[in-house]
């Protein structure tokens, strides 16, 4: 008997019990729906964060000076790292919390003192006005670039360029607005202000550097630069605990580990509901085999082989679960659109998830249909014919 014919016949059987078939499918629908939705949300969130990390700048290496002990790293010493092999640019950073004031608006924000290289290394320049220059650093100019949210709060109406604000009481001139970055790891990339590093050292009364952003000249140089800088800093501090060094790859690795586990967990939980759906299918197929015992007997009398009966019931359970899977997928897709419309999350529907969910739901139908189908195929034709 041809498979297509068996599918047609199974549609008839499913149609003759519409409500029952729908309720049976519901288990699979909910299972596939939750698998697809949860995994897509997890992947969407991962994708968003990954993008932000990558936007931090290409081939970025971050050195945090925790400054244990008495030694610090001076600005000149930090800048000297630029001369190392494989280093394209260095942006030393001094940072701290400050209070800014404009008119009668006062707010707390993060101040970063850095050099013009910050622009390339951190991939963030001025969207209007200008960025820092060497001259600003040399003359310890009181100039400042405002992050998006700071600018909005301080100057809700007018253009901040050229205006004056007070940082911890000291007057600064606004020379530029920073490009929008959105919320990233470790707080908003827009809730900060940038001043020349030399100015910041004086303002915050810090002599050392707290963070150095390094840009390697090529992706394959990253590991070598890390090793070299690590050795140099260990020598400088006489202590390898005084600083931490990591690059984007490490951050991404950690992130992937976390989200991978999360995705697996969500997928697993949803998978269990799919399994429960499968058991529902098995249950209803067993009922169906019992109800149709006589029909099975008739078919056998007319020459149906074991294979024909087995195939018939297997296809029926697979059609149930397969269509359940399709409906679940459609629902999940709809939910994804709704979620991205009403929240900040954008679920990512990877073809892999869609394929896995569909194949898995089909397999659930076949697996849980196997036992009932086998039961039907093994029926003795005479006894089956005698059933009521």
């Amino acid at each position, binding site marked *: 008997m041809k498979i297509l014919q068996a599918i047609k016949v199974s549609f008839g059987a499913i149609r003759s019990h519409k409500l029952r078939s729908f309720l049976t499918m519901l288990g699979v629908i909910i299972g596939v729906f939750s698998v697809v939705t949860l995994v897509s949300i997890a992947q969407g969130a991962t994708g968003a964060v990954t993008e932000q990390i990558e936007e931090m700048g290409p081939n970025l290496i971050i050195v945090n000076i925790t400054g244990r002990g008495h030694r610090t790293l001076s600005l000149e010493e930090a800048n000297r790292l630029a001369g190392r092999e494989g280093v394209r640019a260095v942006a030393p950073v001094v940072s701290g919390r400050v209070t800014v004031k404009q008119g009668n608006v006062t707010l707390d924000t993060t101040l970063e003192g850095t050099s013009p290289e910050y622009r390339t290394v951190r991939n963030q320049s001025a969207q209007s006005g200008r960025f820092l220059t060497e001259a600003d650093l040399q003359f310890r100019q009181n100039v400042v670039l405002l992050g998006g949210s700071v600018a909005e709060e301080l100057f809700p109406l007018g253009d901040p360029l050229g205006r004056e604000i007070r940082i911890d009481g000291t007057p600064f001139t606004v020379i530029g607005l920073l490009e929008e970055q959105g919320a990233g790891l470790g707080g908003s990339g827009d809730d900060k202000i940038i001043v020349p590093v030399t100015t910041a050292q004086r303002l915050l009364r810090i002599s050392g550097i707290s963070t150095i952003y390094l840009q390697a000249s090529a992706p394959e140089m990253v590991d070598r630069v890390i090793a070299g800088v690590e050795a140099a800093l260990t020598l400088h501090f006489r202590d390898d605990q005084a600083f931490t060094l990591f690059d984007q790859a490490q951050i991404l690795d950690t992130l992937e580990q976390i989200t991978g586990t999360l995705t697996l967990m969500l997928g697993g939980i949803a998978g269990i509901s799919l399994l429960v759906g499968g058991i529902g299918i098995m249950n209803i197929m067993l009922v169906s085999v019992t109800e149709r015992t006589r*029909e099975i007997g008739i*078919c056998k*009398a007319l*020459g149906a*082989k074991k294979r024909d009966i087995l195939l018939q019931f297997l296809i029926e359970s697979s059609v149930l679960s397969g269509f359940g899977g399709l409906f679940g997928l459609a629902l999940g897709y709809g939910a994804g659109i709704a979620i991205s419309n009403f929240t900040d999350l954008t679920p990512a529907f990877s073809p892999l998830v869609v394929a896995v969910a569909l194949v898995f739901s089909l397999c659930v139908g076949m697996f849980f249909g196997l036992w009932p189908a086998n039961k039907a195929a093994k029926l003795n034709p005479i006894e089956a014919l005698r059933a009521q």
Partner: protein
Amino acid sequence: MIAISGVNKIYYLHGVQVAALREVSLSVAEGEFIAVAGPSGSGKSTLMNIIGCLDIPSSGVYCLNGEDVGRLPDNRLAEIRNRHIGFVFQSFNLLPRISARENVELPLLYRGISSKERTRLALKALERVGLADRVRHRPTQLSGGQQQRVAIARALVGEPSVILADEPTGNLDSGSGNEIIALLHQLHRQGKTVVLITHDPDLASQAQRTVKMYDGMIIREEVRVP
């Protein structure tokens, strides 16, 4: 073509042996019309199940067209039922959810015949039993006599050599019953071997030969003198 010799059929019910057939021997020639009669429980249906390859003997030999059926695997038996046997049951045994035409198509479906050809043959078979105007009806939308005619169409659609009818008129009034018997005689005239199980002495007497059973044994054979 049907050659049964020394066949026993023993059922086990809760550990107790029930002999449904004892040392039954019977030959039916090709194109013969025989009737099997006997009281309830005498083993008529059991005999028919064995002739129809729905069941195999506990002992003894049954040869159909020279092939020892008792040794064949299930799949081969299904194939023989499909190609060589046409069943007509007392309770019609049509599938309730599909139309008359689709019911008639079933044996062809298991033979792997294309959908177009199936439909053509099924319509022809329904025409032969006088139901050309009822092809779309479900079994529940047909009278008992019509249902049994659909069953006969289903039995003959695959052009089997043997038609086995187990009390085909048992659930019918005499009028529709006579139509069914007339159809069986017509099939016989067209060269089919017909085995008719019946309680009705009148019907039995119309056969070329009547086999009387009692308690699992064939106790008498009567040949009709034409």
